[in-house]
């Protein structure tokens, strides 16, 4: 067996195929650069077999045991999901959000007692993402149920969020269901001086009387 040349760069050392493969897989994850991928892979090499197996099983369970709720399209391990199946929620109000993480953010506030609908994206004409790529048809199907009284659009206050809100509002308007949207204005702890023009315009439109 020949000894490796001293001039060999350190990057070419992990030529152990399974480790290289693991680094490659970590590198695909969001926010993981090549160095972080190496660190994670070498950490796993030193991990106990039980811990490694638990991690591998957790990853597989996410992929195999999880799907979309037939009603709200949120990710869930049962259908209907815990929120849609909860009789104590207000099933006449649907809050429309872009992604599953937005449901978590809104649920933390405990301000909304209704149910949700996850679109899984926003209309983005510049990336050729249209309504047919989102769960818009599924939303309209839910609205065939007469008990729905209000749709709350909780979409990002940016160009794609606004475009999606305008599009959905246009679809729902003929059905005679009340469509509302989250207020846009100044963030708590922010400073007026740095607020942009659009935020200030919306903040003025939504001003409230002090009682």
């Amino acid at each position, binding site marked *: 067996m020949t000894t490796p040349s001293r001039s060999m760069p350190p990057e070419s050392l992990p030529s152990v195929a399974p480790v290289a493969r693991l680094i490659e897989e970590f590198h695909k994850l969001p926010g993981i650069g090549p160095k972080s991928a190496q660190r994670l892979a070498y950490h796993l090499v030193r991990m106990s077999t039980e811990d490694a197996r638990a991690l591998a099983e957790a990853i597989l369970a996410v992929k195999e045991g999880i799907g979309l709720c037939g009603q709200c399209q949120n990710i869930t391990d049962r259908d209907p999901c815990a929120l849609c199946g909860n009789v104590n929620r207000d099933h006449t109000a649907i809050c429309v959000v872009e992604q599953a993480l937005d449901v978590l953010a809104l649920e933390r506030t405990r301000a909304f007692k209704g149910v949700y609908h996850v679109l899984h994206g926003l209309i983005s*004409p*510049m990336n050729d993402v249209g309504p047919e790529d989102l769960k818009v048809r599924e939303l309209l199907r839910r609205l065939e149920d007469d008990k729905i009284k209000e749709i709350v659009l909780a979409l990002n206050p940016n160009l794609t969020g606004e475009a999606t809100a305008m599009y959905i509002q246009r679809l729902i308007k003929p059905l005679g269901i009340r469509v509302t949207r989250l207020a846009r204005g100044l*963030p708590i702890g*922010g400073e007026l001086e740095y607020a942009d023009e*659009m935020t200030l315009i919306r903040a003025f439109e939504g001003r409230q009387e002090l009682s």
Partner: protein
Amino acid sequence: MQPVPANKAFADHVYKTDAIVLRQTSTGEADRILTVLTPYLGKLRLIGRSVRRPKSKIGGHVEPLMHARLMVTKGKSGMDAVSQAETVEAYPALRSNLERTVWGIYCAELVDAFLPDEAPSADVFGLLADTLARLNAGEEGMALRWFELHLLAMTGYRPELQVCTQCRGALAPNRFAFSPDAGGVLCQTCEQANRIEERQTPFLTPSVNALKALRYIQHQPYEEARRLRVPSPLANETEGILRFYIRYLLERDVRSTSFLDHLRRQAAL
């Protein structure tokens, strides 16, 4: 008395520029990469750090289709970063109308596609700012055709609409074709010669009125062109000719047109 030396270190690592945001993509935890059009520095790719957070002091000023004044810090190795931003024009009426929003995105997409990186950009910047202001004021059809023809001219793809592109001869009414491959109109003789030699590429046979309308838009300043009354079949034809030409040049559809078509189909129902 010695003059106070200029603060060179400051001048070297920051610069100020006006910019219209053409597109943005999310990256990292809360950052965005912005593609912006500037009047003097061409098209730039800048990083907006933490602009997706609600309390970002920059985020609201650098949404797509916003005209902002930026202070940019030069990156040591990577991308330059936006360090301050102030809105010059937000085009609020454009943003509150779905069709106009998508047309605005369409214009930004064309600028991004046709203007090469680091190309001079002052005239394109002016054209885009004017067009967004026109969309904001509720003008659509003519403003968009004028934008398309003049953007093509500024970026080197001006279609020849006066004389035959090949023989430079005058055109006879109803005996001409529009060939994107030739870069303009062809007289019947040249068009048939191409067909015989099997050099035939896709072409259109526009109506005389459509050709006249396009020539007028190409040669007149906007204030004159906007007074032209274009009945809707003719407006559709001129839009179709330019879309055909642009698709040929880009070798793909303009992405935002598929949503525009979707909205039109829905409106027709």
